[in-house]
């Protein structure tokens, strides 16, 4: 391990490390372009043989200044920014943001829009968990699971496309309701998916749950005490796999979640395998919620009645002068939101997603801050991997299910 053979800054770090702690220690630079980090995350790992002694995550490669961008767009335009934060759960981000602004506006959202939001955010949860399961299994070496997961994910994306015209960056939830009227025939499409999906989850389980290699790679791996997780800002399935029953959908229900019957799954083992079990069970519970939303979908309007905020129907614009004026005003100037501040927390597939919106009474927000689950979760990586084998790093960070767009914003 001679530092002079390979020139460059990185080797200088290695030499420094050797000078400090003897020749056994070495620094490994994992990322920023590493297939297992699912985005651009760089981990600086200090090794003693195969044991990790220190880990320092380096983030910010995907920082796009979205929070700054909010301040120059009007409230409705900003919905499109929220999609791009967590690109695997765009509708969850739409929901958090529109709920926050609606709270400031004190808007009443009609039941159909609320139920539709629940149904689609749960489909988003399935979408996100499927990508997680597929890539996580791929990282650990179970290649075929990926193909199975993406088969179902494709159908979810087609449903999104049917609703919004977009597969990923849907922006389907708007302040005041939905962007478009739900398309004709959506019930059959969703029903077809929901009918077959539980058996597909069984298929994934057949591939993994009793698979000896899978168990060997995940049982007892990625342990981190619950107290440390709470102190380090970890939320979501990670906490539930450690036995803590926290879920914003149950604790502080939003968008009519209190009208749905579902269970918040928990495990106590607190390892990678337990997180896998929690997410599998969450998929089954989400299916139940979608089923209930679909069967009990209320009829009636799908957007709020406030003409200052919600765009008028096309038909009204052709017949009523006033509707045309409101349309012009909303499109050109946006709408004013009363001064105040709210913090709206929802349960995204990754954990606690908070939108802090501050209004100064104008048509553009003074400040929007996103408390993203990936940012909080990632902070626990150094604690989680300290003292474990380098081979377990991939399984451990995979079980956190972070998205780097969500981390860096």
């Amino acid at each position, binding site marked *: 391990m001679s530092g002079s053979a390979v020139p460059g800054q990185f080797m200088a770090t290695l030499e420094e490390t050797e000078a400090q702690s003897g020749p056994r220690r070495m620094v490994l630079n994992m990322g920023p372009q590493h297939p297992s980090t699912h985005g651009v995350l760089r981990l600086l790992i200090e090794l003693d043989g195969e044991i990790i002694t220190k880990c320092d995550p380096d*983030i*910010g490669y995907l*920082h796009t*200044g979205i*929070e*700054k*961008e909010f*301040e*120059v767009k009007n409230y409705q335009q900003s919905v499109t920014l929220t999609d791009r934060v967590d690109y695997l759960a765009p509708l969850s981000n739409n929901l958090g943001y529109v709920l926050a602004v609606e*709270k*400031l506006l004190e808007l009443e959202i009609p039941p159909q829009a609320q139920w539709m939001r629940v149904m689609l955010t749960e489909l988003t949860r399935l979408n996100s968990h499927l990508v997680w399961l597929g890539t996580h299994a791929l990282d650990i070496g179970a290649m075929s699971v990926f193909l199975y997961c993406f088969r179902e994910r494709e159908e979810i994306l087609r449903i999104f496309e049917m609703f919004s015209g977009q597969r990923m960056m849907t922006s389907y939830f708007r302040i005041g309701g939905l962007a478009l009227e739900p398309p004709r025939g959506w019930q059959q499409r969703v029903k077809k998916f929901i009918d077959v999906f539980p058996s597909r989850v069984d298929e994934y389980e057949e591939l993994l749950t009793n698979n000896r290699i899978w168990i060997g790679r995940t049982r007892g791996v990625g342990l981190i005490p619950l107290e440390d997780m*709470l*102190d*380090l*800002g970890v939320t979501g399935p990670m906490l539930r796999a450690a036995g*803590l029953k*926290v879920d914003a959908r149950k*604790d*502080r229900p939003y968008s009519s979640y209190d009208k749905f019957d579902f269970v918040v799954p928990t495990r106590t083992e607190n390892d990678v395998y337990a997180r896998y079990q929690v997410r599998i069970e969450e998929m089954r519970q989400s299916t139940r919620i979608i089923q209930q939303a679909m069967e009990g979908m209320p009829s009636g309007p799908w957007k709020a009645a406030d003409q200052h905020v919600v765009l008028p129907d096309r038909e009204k614009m052709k017949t009523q002068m006033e509707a045309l004026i409101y349309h012009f005003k909303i499109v050109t100037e946006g709408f004013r939101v009363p001064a*105040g*501040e*709210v*913090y709206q*927390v929802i349960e995204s597939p990754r954990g*606690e997603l*908070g939108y*802090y919106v*501050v209004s100064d009474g104008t048509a553009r927000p*003074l*400040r929007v*801050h996103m*408390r993203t689950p990936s*940012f*909080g979760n990632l*902070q626990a990586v150094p604690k989680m991997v300290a003292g474990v084998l380098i081979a377990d790093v991939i399984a451990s960070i995979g079980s956190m299910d972070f998205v780097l767009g969500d981390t*860096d*914003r």
Partner: protein
Amino acid sequence: MIPDNLREYAVALAVDAFDGEAITGGKHEFGEWTLEVAPSKIVSVCGFLKYDQKFVRLSTVTAVDRYPAEPRFELVYHLYSIEGNQWLRLKCRTHATDPVIESVTSVWRSANWYEREVFDLFGIRFVNHPDLRRIMMPEGWEGYPLRKDYPVTGSRV
């Protein structure tokens, strides 16, 4: 002494009993409680809230730039008590020239990255922070992007 509008809030009364000079104001809006805390008391108040009032989780630390008002920066902390299932927002104001406040990393370790982000994007310094360096922007970046006087478009000079 706490303002009259906070008297019905048990947590505010408890904080007031703990330190009579800590709370400088507050409000109850949209079902959310906000307490304004004297900047010099932030660490002791947070410690009290965590260990005595069971606000075990610090959800986020962020800032709002109230330019051109003075004190310019408003630091915002969101706390959550799992046991009581309640949220609490704390606020502190700092001045435009050399904005500085004490770090709460000694109370919650999660504040480490949250405060680094505020330092990076607003240029507010946190005293006693274990690792205060930029987190989102590259090292050596000039300026603080989320300040109101930082342009949204244009090339770097």
